[in-house]
């Protein structure tokens, strides 16, 4: 067998995702796999991150699916933002480094929504938290 061998459950699932700045941006909750029309082999095409995906993996398929659909409806009905294409991964190790900003991932949706719709309307919201 040539090529690096990885065990999905051991070395990918639940591992930390980091964005291009090294910021933590979720965990790998599942993997999307597709069959290649050319070879018939199955390939991992994307990481799946988000509470909906995690719930589905834990057996709560109905609730997880509902959360995923709701998230898609609110944020971007055109595409599944819970999917992070494998091509965005720059390193697969104890942490998985992504060549993308955390802001662009669905895992930041709740934080972004709270910031834009709640925190942003409070008096004094221009105060910047110390680094």
């Amino acid at each position, binding site marked *: 067998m040539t*090529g690096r*061998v990885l*065990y*999905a459950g051991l070395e990918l699932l639940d591992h930390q995702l980091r964005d291009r700045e090294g910021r933590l941006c979720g965990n790998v909750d599942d993997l*999307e796999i597709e069959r290649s029309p050319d070879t018939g082999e199955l390939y*991992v095409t994307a990481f799946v991150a988000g509470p909906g995906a995690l719930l589905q*993996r834990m057996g709560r398929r109905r609730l997880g699916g509902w959360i995923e659909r709701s998230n898609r409806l609110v944020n971007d009905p055109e595409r599944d933002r819970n999917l992070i294409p*494998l*091509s965005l991964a720059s390193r697969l190790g104890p942490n998985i480094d992504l060549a993308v900003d955390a802001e662009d991932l669905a895992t930041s949706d709740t934080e972004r929504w709270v910031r834009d719709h709640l925190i942003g309307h409070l008096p004094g919201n221009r105060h910047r938290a110390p680094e």
Partner: protein
Amino acid sequence: MRLSELLDREVVRADGRSLGKVRDVRLVQDGPILAGGTQAALRVDAVIVSRGWRGVRLGYLRGQVRGPWLLRVTFGRLERGAHAISLRDLVWDEGPHLRLRSDEPDGHAGP
């Protein structure tokens, strides 16, 4: 489809006898470099099937963890029954099982 649809799925022999459940999935990074990326594609190569405990996820299988000695030996014994079965030897249809094409899995899940 998702990997979670494969995990914990029962694997049966051609005659219907159970071999255990899928505890992990072996991937091999031997595909072409992904368009726009730096990683080679990850091919789903085999499933790790075990009758028993889910301890295969602790990493004491496959010779990847060298110690501590006591844990390595203990978990190694628990995981001795685990097999890696190539996906090519399995039929994965819409049913609840993965079915072996013939009755000979390709061996233990060693390194």
